[in-house]
């Protein structure tokens, strides 16, 4: 966030010649955000497990991952806020079990080995007050004694852990307290903390043309908005609009629409090819038209041609060589051979690794070559276009050679989209002038369009996840738990608080430099105490969700999970030293951990390696995070 504000308030108004150095394009700005490493990690892990497992990426698999991520994520978000404020709470895990157990003990029927027999209307507020009290006590103790929060909350952790077991045994003579559903108003509260959404019952066939149409339209509109947003932030606006461009854009857009409709309506392989090509060309035409309408055409030839031909030529040569080798390996090795050739690899596996590895290396080398040719836009565009065409060729090789249907169909489609995108980038950069200065209105419009686009795509995915059609076949019953809803809502609210409110600024201030914050009038003690109360409040929510899910609470619930919350926050880009971090990142960090947890059984791997794998993923996320941020901050 800081990076973004800097560029907005920075040297925008002054017209110094050097201002271009301070301008950051949309991708660059994205890369300096704290959660970017986690975001890249999520994409990587998703692709990884999607490729390995049949279940991962299906609706049922996604539900399972979200279920695991939800309570973890709620806690990670709260813990991330506290960590931004410069403190830790080691009692956060035990607090989940404590509030869950308290609510069950209060609600359980009275009698020997019974509970208090309170209605939940009384019991739940008492539990909440208890959680707030623990948070307040943590915060006050840390502030009054100036001891590290590590020590204070470790004490609270043991107190809670012991109290859970002690009281459970004392009141019920068991280590599991059960009987929450005996409370008279259980039904009402079960709708709040235990509600479920059974996807199989949510059939959406006719309203607005059916789920699939709504899904497709949302994805297309969202994609278009994102593309417009990126173009608006990348290219220089022309002085007056060029109407012929608009006409061209509309022709392209209608061509693309016709292509999509035709694609959806036809089945034949030949017709599919025809319409796919029409669609691809129409999209490029629309993009060129849109650019011509709004942006300055490229001016060139005044720069001296100091291309580094040797480096460029070497990279092009090596890149082409790598791709040829990769394709050769793909064709030469037996795709069905299960003979082991070495550590964990069969001939089939070796083939896949060689093919993908060499192809990727080749494409990267080509893109690097294009970078070296930046003084000559035509050469640059040519090399980029070559890479795009090769990507499309590779897509076809994958389609004809891959052994699994998933790669032949879905992966093939994504490779085509990537090739088309690369081709469009090459053409657009050749035709239009890139903006090298800050243009407030263009940046604002671009940012908003991108955000609206992402929201539309997200909405489309949500529609797809929540509803089914009568024709869709999903094995088993997909039931979402309300904890997922709380997770998403809490992520939104916490992000708004941290980035847009005074309390959020105070949080960053006390975590960055407490005494300085205090001197400029930030109520440091109060801020930190409230943050501790946010964490124990989140743990209260987690406790309610667990208790209403299982109808019982075991004394050890949550113990030891506090480290998982901290890890999720760190994976999401929050610094252990305070003053820097992101709640969205923490939510993504929780997703990464849930994907790693669930991906392993989905892939059928031996669970013995689970923690090793988890550790490697966590290390990689943190390293990528660190590296990307340094790179992005270090260059301009």
């Amino acid at each position: 966030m800081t990076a973004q504000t800097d560029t907005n308030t920075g040297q925008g108004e002054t017209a110094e010649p050097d201002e271009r150095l301070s301008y950051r394009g949309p991708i660059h700005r994205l890369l300096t955000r704290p959660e970017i490493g986690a975001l890249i990690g999520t994409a990587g892990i998703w692709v990884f497990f999607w490729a390995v497992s049949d279940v991962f990426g299906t609706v049922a698999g996604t539900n399972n991952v979200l279920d695991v991520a939800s309570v973890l994520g709620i806690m990670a978000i709260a813990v991330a806020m506290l960590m931004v404020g410069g403190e830790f709470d080691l009692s956060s895990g035990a607090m989940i079990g404590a509030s869950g157990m308290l609510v069950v003990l209060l609600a359980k029927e009275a009698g020997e080995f019974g509970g208090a027999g309170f209605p939940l209307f009384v019991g739940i507020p008492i539990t909440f007050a208890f959680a707030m009290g623990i948070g307040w006590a943590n915060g006050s103790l840390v502030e009054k004694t100036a001891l590290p929060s590590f020590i204070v909350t470790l004490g609270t952790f043991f107190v809670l852990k012991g109290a859970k077991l002690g009281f459970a045994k004392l009141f019920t003579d068991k280590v599991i307290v059960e009987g929450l559903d005996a409370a008279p108003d259980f039904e009402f509260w079960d709708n709040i903390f235990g509600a479920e959404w059974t996807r199989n019952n949510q059939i959406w066939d006719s309203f607005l043309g059916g789920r699939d149409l709504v899904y497709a339209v949302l994805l297309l509109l969202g994609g278009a908005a994102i593309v417009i947003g990126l173009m608006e932030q990348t290219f220089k606006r022309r002085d007056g609009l060029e109407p012929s461009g608009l006409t061209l854009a509309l022709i392209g857009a209608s061509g693309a629409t016709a292509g999509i409709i035709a694609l959806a309506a036809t089945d034949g392989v030949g017709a599919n090819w025809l319409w796919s090509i029409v669609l691809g060309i129409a999209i490029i035409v629309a993009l060129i038209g849109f650019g011509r309408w709004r942006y300055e055409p490229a001016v060139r030839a005044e720069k001296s041609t100091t291309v580094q031909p040797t480096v460029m030529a070497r990279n092009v040569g090596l890149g082409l060589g790598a791709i040829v080798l990769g394709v050769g390996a793909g064709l030469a090795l037996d795709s069905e051979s299960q003979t082991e050739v070495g550590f964990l690899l069969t001939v089939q596996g070796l083939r896949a690794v060689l093919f993908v590895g060499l192809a990727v290396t080749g494409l990267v080398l080509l893109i690097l070559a294009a970078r070296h040719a930046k003084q000559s836009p035509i050469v640059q565009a040519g090399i980029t276009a070559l890479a795009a065409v090769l990507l499309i060729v590779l897509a076809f090789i994958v389609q004809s050679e891959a052994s699994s249907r998933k790669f032949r169909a879905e992966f093939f489609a994504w490779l085509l989209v990537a090739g088309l995108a690369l081709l469009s980038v090459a053409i657009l950069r050749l035709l239009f002038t890139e903006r090298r200065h800050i243009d407030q209105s263009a940046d604002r419009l671009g940012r908003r369009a991108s955000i609206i686009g992402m929201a539309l795509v997200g909405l489309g995915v949500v529609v797809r996840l929540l509803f089914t059609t009568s024709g869709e076949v999903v094995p088993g019953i997909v039931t979402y738990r309300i904890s997922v809803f709380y997770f998403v809502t809490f992520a939104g609210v916490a992000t708004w608080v941290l980035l847009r409110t005074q309390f959020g600024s105070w949080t960053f201030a006390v975590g960055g430099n407490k005494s300085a914050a205090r001197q400029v009038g930030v109520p440091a003690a109060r801020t930190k105490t409230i943050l501790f109360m946010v964490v124990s409040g989140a743990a209260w929510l987690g406790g309610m969700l667990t208790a209403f899910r299982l109808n019982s609470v075991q004394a050890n619930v949550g113990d030891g999970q506090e480290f998982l919350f901290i890890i999720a926050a760190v994976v999401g880009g929050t610094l252990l030293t305070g003053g820097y971090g992101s709640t969205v990142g923490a939510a993504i960090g929780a997703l990464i951990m849930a994907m790693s947890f669930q991906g392993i059984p989905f892939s059928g791997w031996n669970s013995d390696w689970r923690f090793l794998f988890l550790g490697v993923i966590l290390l990689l996320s943190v390293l990528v995070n660190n590296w990307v941020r340094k790179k992005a901050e270090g260059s301009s």
Partner: protein
Amino acid sequence: MKRFRFIAMLGVIALVAAACGSGETTASTTGGETGTATTAADEVALSQGSGLTFYMATHSDDGVFWSVVKKGAEDAAAAVGADMVWSPSSNDPERQVQDIQAAIAAGADGIGVSLANPTAVAPAAAAAVAAGIPVVTLNSGVNDYQEIGAITHIGQTEIVAGNGAGLRFNTLGATKVLCAQQEQGNVGLEERCDGLAETFNGDVVTQFVGLDSSPDEQINTIAAQLAADPDIDAVLGVGPNVAVRAVEAGTQAGRDLFIGGFDISTDIIQEIEAGNVDFTVDQQQYLQGYLAIMFLYLNVTNQNTVGGGLPVLTGPGFVDGANVAEVKALVEAGTR
């Protein structure tokens, strides 16, 4: 221009991940993955009943005890050419529920479940049955397997096993037994101590003494308990490790104790050989893993239901000075 480099980096990362992914796909195909049943090898395997994947969603901590259950399940899966996915939840009921749901989502051909915490886990297991997936319970769950619609339960009746331990202590001549527990929240362990109290003629004190993962805590807690109560002259560890810890705690407290244990480990066998531990109650957990997979396999391929509505008992058996030598060889092979 640098922006371009970042695009490249993004692409590299995404594609490298894809590379690893496809490599792993093929590597894991050696295990007989279902999706790619096109090769000749797979077709042969299919005729032998391969392509089946059984999930074992247990409260396992992958310790000494559960690793033998796992070995049993692995051996059975290998014997019938099926895949077995082992999902240990380390005694966390919410985690176990999620593991069961993951198995349902993955389209498991059968699920083995342990019901250490039946109120929390049984509904998820019942949902698996409702989804048409055969379920057996193993290790814990003898009181609930019928209600969830499981084929049968494989394990030992903990009360009966505890009764057996009580009778042994009577024969040894003990007067007051400390029943030392290594887990909180496991109904089975509670029942072992309850069963002990039913048949034992003297007093029984039940105490959680720390997890197996913190052996020092176990020794010190038992030693403290011994110091606090001079009447205790016997310890029943309701797991193998905690019984061995009781030997050390007895030495530390300078007390001569009758010691009994539950289940088998290399350590407890050595202690029985040395005469420090008098006996251990063996529930032959290898059978719990092996039979769970076999029963599921036979149910899927041959519609067999084992047990006739009753549980299949794998214990109690006893290992003491008389048979320790024979059992020791099997323990070293990892099957007892």
